[in-house]
């Protein structure tokens, strides 16, 4: 079994199983609340749902196509390609396989 990492830690060609998302609630617990522009971007429930509707359901297998050093991550999921901004990608937990 692979380690639990976030999407941004994977390299092109890596395959992984989606585990889940860290939502706002968890994050605020960990990081507290600062001036909003210094906070990380929020992943509300709406966004988590959207990602699931695009095929990123816990348990589904994804493949990383591209991982820009400071930019978005491109993955292949459900037979389509998805570009995901770095901030969101950093809060999608996966297990490398």
């Amino acid at each position: 079994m692979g380690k639990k990492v976030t999407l941004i830690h994977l390299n092109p060609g890596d395959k992984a199983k989606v585990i889940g998302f860290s939502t706002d609630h968890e994050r605020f617990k960990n990081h507290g609340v600062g001036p909003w522009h210094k906070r990380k971007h929020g992943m509300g429930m709406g966004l988590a749902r959207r990602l699931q509707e695009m095929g990123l359901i816990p348990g589904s297998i994804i493949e990383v196509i591209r991982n820009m050093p400071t930019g978005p991550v491109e993955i292949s999921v459900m037979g389509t390609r998805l570009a995901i901004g770095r901030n969101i990608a950093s809060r999608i937990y996966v297990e490398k396989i």
Partner: protein
Amino acid sequence: MNKKLYTIALAGNANVGKSVIFNQLTGGNQIIGNWPGKTVEKAEGHIEQEGTKIHVIDLPGIYSLSTYSEEEIVSREFIAKEKPDAVINVVDASSLERNLFFTLQLVELESPLIVALNQYDIMENKGLSIDFEMLSSLLGVPVVPTIAVRNKGLKELFEKSKEVIKNTKKVKPILYGREVEEKINILTSTIEKEIDTFYPPRFIAIKLLENDTSIKTMVKNPDIIALAEKLKKELTKIHGESPETVIISERYTIASRIAEQVTKKKGKTKINIGDSIDKIALNKITGYILLLGLVLLIFYGVFKFGSYFSELLSASFELLKPIFIQLPLPPLVNRLLWNGLMIGIIAGVAIVLPYIAPFYLILALLEDSGYLARIAFLTDNIMHKLGLHGKAFIPLIEGFGCTVPAVLGTRIMERDRDRFIAAILATLVPCSARTVILLGLVAAFLGPVYAIIIYALTFILMYILGRLLNRYIKGSPTGLVMEMPLYKKPVPKIILRQTWVRLKDFVYFAFPIIIAANIVMEVLTELNWIVPIANFFKPVMTNWLGLPPLAGITFLFGILRKELTLIMLSTLYHTANFAEILTPRQIFIFGFVTMIYIPCVATIAVFKREFGWKRATVVAIGEFLGAIVLGGILNQVLRIFMP
């Protein structure tokens, strides 16, 4: 068919070919492009046949009936509330699984459904084949394979849609797993007894279990809500996931199962050349070099093409002048005819069209190839500094064509805050009218380098403004989630048509304004009002900006359309050789101020429509003052370098 009027809606994921089908069916002019999110408003067209009229509605792309972004609200509300007589669900055959996820929800909504299995050619290129008859029996709705861009299968699609309209039998539901189905049934039977809405009870039950807030607000009934909460808890207990995750993943399981059953692998997958292109086009170094090179090439190309034809056309029109001057008419009429009407037409044809036409052509190529979405990918991290994400770059690029669709196009942003910031920036993007001034005045009479400097100044300004807006407008920004379209070989027919549609709009909309403005100007000249008006602007124009007083008048006309500033200049001085009228510094300042001083009336109008009067006024006045202040400062600084 006995009613007189029917409605067919086109619904489906983004970028599957809905607008192509719409245009083919109705002869409409919807913008087509290879990136998700270009149709932001529903469009209507109609077909008349044997005394019946059929409205066809093209909807924005939508991934789910749980609403997330603004464009999706338009689609869901339309399908659910307006109850079209038939819904054509356009599906991308080459990624069936993901598309069926939405189809299943339309079945849940009990829409009178028909599936168009589009992009059949692309699916075949992937080495796949689909048993569409089996798909039809599994879904319980008619399925028609189509290749929209080649007009294949659309006739049959239309015939089948008419059958669906006639036949009102209910589609049987597609069942979830046993536990979920149990909960749905309990909830459905209670809902059936208790409330009566335009949504089917089973649909409400599923959406309640899925945690859909807008359905929850609509239901109100506390007993039902309480029951739903209880059932949701049970679901979570059994599956260890949130109820919406359970439902979404079960729905995906169904979609995958169906897709697997009907899809056959035949032959080998052709290697996807898109992946090889992306190795360069999206590489962290070559990607940006390519992007920059392409942008420079485009502008250089448009400039070369434009200035060549502009000169050629101006010279040919000059030949007409003697003929007009000698017409046996009273001198006043003669002057109005030539200086007002003809110069207006000539300006439109000779100064504006040569730059705009190639520009629109290139824009259409960018749109249809799929590269636009790559630009969004590459610019995502820059846009984050402005509190936006990569998708915002797409309306900004559209803004190089015209600001009005760019402001509308910001609807692809998911939140109001992001939309507002993107729309403000969009008003500053040099639209084709401003490009005419930059290329036709600054580049042509000062040199291309100076035009590039003005572009650069504008972009720096946008960057600073974006950062400030991001800081001071409340709310937290969202990130990028975008489907990456496959590269497609642009279809010449679609490219040419799109270019033509935009040019036609420009000619119909802009020419009358240009000509009317010219005639007004000529009348002002005849009345000797020009000098008093100019003197009124003198303090700002001459003392602060260092421009000739007459420039104030041209700026006034520029509020109507930006290219009028240049055209009016040539009308006032009776020449198109601007080097005779303006010093180099004046050309530079003139170009810079025109870039930003105010969006044109059409932009203000669309801004008002999208964001309300208050915000529209603030933006218009803000940009006006900003241009005057910055233009003046620039003028004082430039004094040192350019006497």
